[in-house]
């Protein structure tokens, strides 16, 4: 996921919250120390057996603390730290070992556990100190700006504030200014510090590479199974539509023609009526085939590519759709198709639920990914788990595509989808708008 949402660095509340978070981080270091000490203690007691009993709960306590840090990093700075596998002690014990001994042994072989422990050793000495820098600046600054003016007379001769010997009104004012400077610096530094801290935590706390790979393989296997299912269902649908639609109509057509041929001499009027019927049936058959083709691959998409296909969608919509495209010619066909059906679904959703008269669609290809944004000024509150949006996600999944929905109650709703892909042609299409 991308680095954090736009944090209003200038707002006072944001700055105070960041300082509060630094404070929290430095205090939480105590908890890290405590949990780390528990685990070390349990490890030291392993030789005399008690350790086997103590290790699982100690490790679980440490994991709770480290989970809290992962959560903070994600919420405060948008830095996502991939969680490790759950601790073995929380799962059923491995088969060939029993009870707490087995669990403790499994723990000792768990890479995530050692990652936690390594972090518990480093966090109080490094992370917490880092977080304390802006905090210290603010607190020392407050001491200079808010306390010095009132107490310098009482403190007598030896009262130094930083490098200023405070013994007169001018030096007191200098201390006041310096204090304000420290406070400002602390506030300014806090967001950067939090980001640095999150990045540093990620280095130590992110799941081991093998875990990441295992997860990735599981995801790929899952999405491959999904896409095969979807494909099979799609083939079944096409087969059924052909069988019940066009094919059946063509059979009727043959029968009616046969009947008309027999009637031709005997009853020309009846034959003519039948032939009219034949014409109507053949048109219905064509209509069926056309709809089927459109459902498989809209012809305009095949002919013109994503930009014009979306423009065509817009012309069929009863909403006012403004379109901006910056696409480098054609994209790989599967990507165009997935993008098209996803945008069609989002546009249909906007038409059905948003209540907005106008929709804005932006298509672009940047950083090796197709990006489509559909925005409406409607009532918002869209359900991200609705069946339509789930369908869109399933379509994007095989491409490692993502759909991000932002729809607070009261609107506006913005859906952004991204599909990683390279463009297949260097040709540039200009951007243009249509209604």
């Amino acid at each position, binding site marked *: 996921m991308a680095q954090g949402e736009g944090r209003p660095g200038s707002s006072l509340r944001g700055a105070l919250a960041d300082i509060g978070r630094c404070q929290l981080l430095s205090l939480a270091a105590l908890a890290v120390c405590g949990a780390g000490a528990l685990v070390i203690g349990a490890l030291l007691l392993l030789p005399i057996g008690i350790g086997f009993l103590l290790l699982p709960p100690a490790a679980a306590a440490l994991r709770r603390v480290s989970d809290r840090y992962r959560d903070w990093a994600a919420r405060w700075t948008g830095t996502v730290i991939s969680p490790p596998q759950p601790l073995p002690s929380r799962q059923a014990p491995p088969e060939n070992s029993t009870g707490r001994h087995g669990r403790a042994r499994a723990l000792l072989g768990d890479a995530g556990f050692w990652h936690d422990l390594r972090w518990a050793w480093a966090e109080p000495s490094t992370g917490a100190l880092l977080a304390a820098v802006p905090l210290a600046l603010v607190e020392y600054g407050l001491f200079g700006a808010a306390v010095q003016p009132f107490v310098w007379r009482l403190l007598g001769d030896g009262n130094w504030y930083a490098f200023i010997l405070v013994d007169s009104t001018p030096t007191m004012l200098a201390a006041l200014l310096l204090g304000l400077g420290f406070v400002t610096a602390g506030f300014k530094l806090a967001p950067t510090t939090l980001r640095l801290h999150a990045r540093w935590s990620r280095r130590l706390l992110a799941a081991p590479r093998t875990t990441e790979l295992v997860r990735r393989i599981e995801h790929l296997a899952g999405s491959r199974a999904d896409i095969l299912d979807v494909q099979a269902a799609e083939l079944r649908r096409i087969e059924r539509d052909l069988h019940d639609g066009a094919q059946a109509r063509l059979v009727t057509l043959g029968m009616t023609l046969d009947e008309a041929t027999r009637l031709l001499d005997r009853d020309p009027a009846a034959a003519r009526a039948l032939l009219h019927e034949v014409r109507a049936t*053949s*048109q219905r058959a064509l209509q069926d085939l056309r709809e089927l083709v459109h459902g498989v691959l809209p012809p305009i998409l095949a*002919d*013109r590519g994503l930009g014009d296909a979306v*423009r065509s969608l817009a012309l069929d919509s009863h909403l006012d759709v403004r379109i901006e495209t910056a696409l480098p010619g054609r994209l790989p066909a599967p990507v165009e198709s997935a993008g098209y059906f996803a945008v069609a679904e989002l546009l249909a959703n906007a038409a059905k639920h948003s209540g907005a008269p106008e929709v804005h669609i932006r298509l672009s290809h940047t950083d090796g990914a197709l990006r489509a944004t559909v925005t409406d000024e409607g009532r918002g509150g869209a359900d991200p788990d609705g069946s339509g949006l789930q369908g869109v996600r399933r379509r994007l999944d095989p491409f490692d595509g993502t759909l991000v929905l932002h729809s607070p109650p009261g609107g506006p709703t913005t859906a952004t989808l991204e599909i990683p892909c390279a463009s297949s042609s260097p040709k540039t299409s200009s951007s243009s708008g249509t209604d």
Partner: protein
Amino acid sequence: MRVVLAEDLFLLRDGLTRTLQEHGFDVIAAVDNGPALLRTLLEEEPDVAVVDIRLPPTFTDEGLQAALEARRSRPALPVLVLSQYVDQLYAHELLAGGQGAIGYLLKDRITHTTQFVDAVRTVAAGGTVMDPQVIARLLARSDARGTTAQLTPRELGVLALMAEGRSNAAVAQTLFISESAVAKHTAAIFSKLRIEPSADDNRRVLAVLAYLKR
């Protein structure tokens, strides 16, 4: 009347040629790909071109592109475009020039020979013929937006046929009403939609489409 025909499927090309010849058209060329079509249109200066959208070598919208290209050097060249499907975007592109003498029909319409031949004649005479499917979708869309809400069902029927490029006489015949009734409905539609009435059939259809496109 001299016709140039472009269609890549032999059977259809043959059938179209025969149909047109039977109705007194002089098919001066029947080509099967985009570049040949463009060349023929520019060299032969036919009275009307009947063009399939999807042609070799790209099998995308080669025919449409060739027709639009030819119309850039000869703006009022009458072109009737045929396609296996109709798309609003293509309809817009064809109408964008505003000169008329344009037709856009589903290939199925060929089976109604007289209507198809009428369409070729209308286009050759500088008129505009849109497929009922394009019109139906435009009407449905403007209906959903409430822009045609003040029309009566009868007026909507007249509007749809009018937009397809039919003359008052043809509309009257289709709806089983008198021509004067059609004229009355037409006047009512124009005043309700605030379209300037005009004697010119082609401008009439363009005005309707321009209105529906909003």
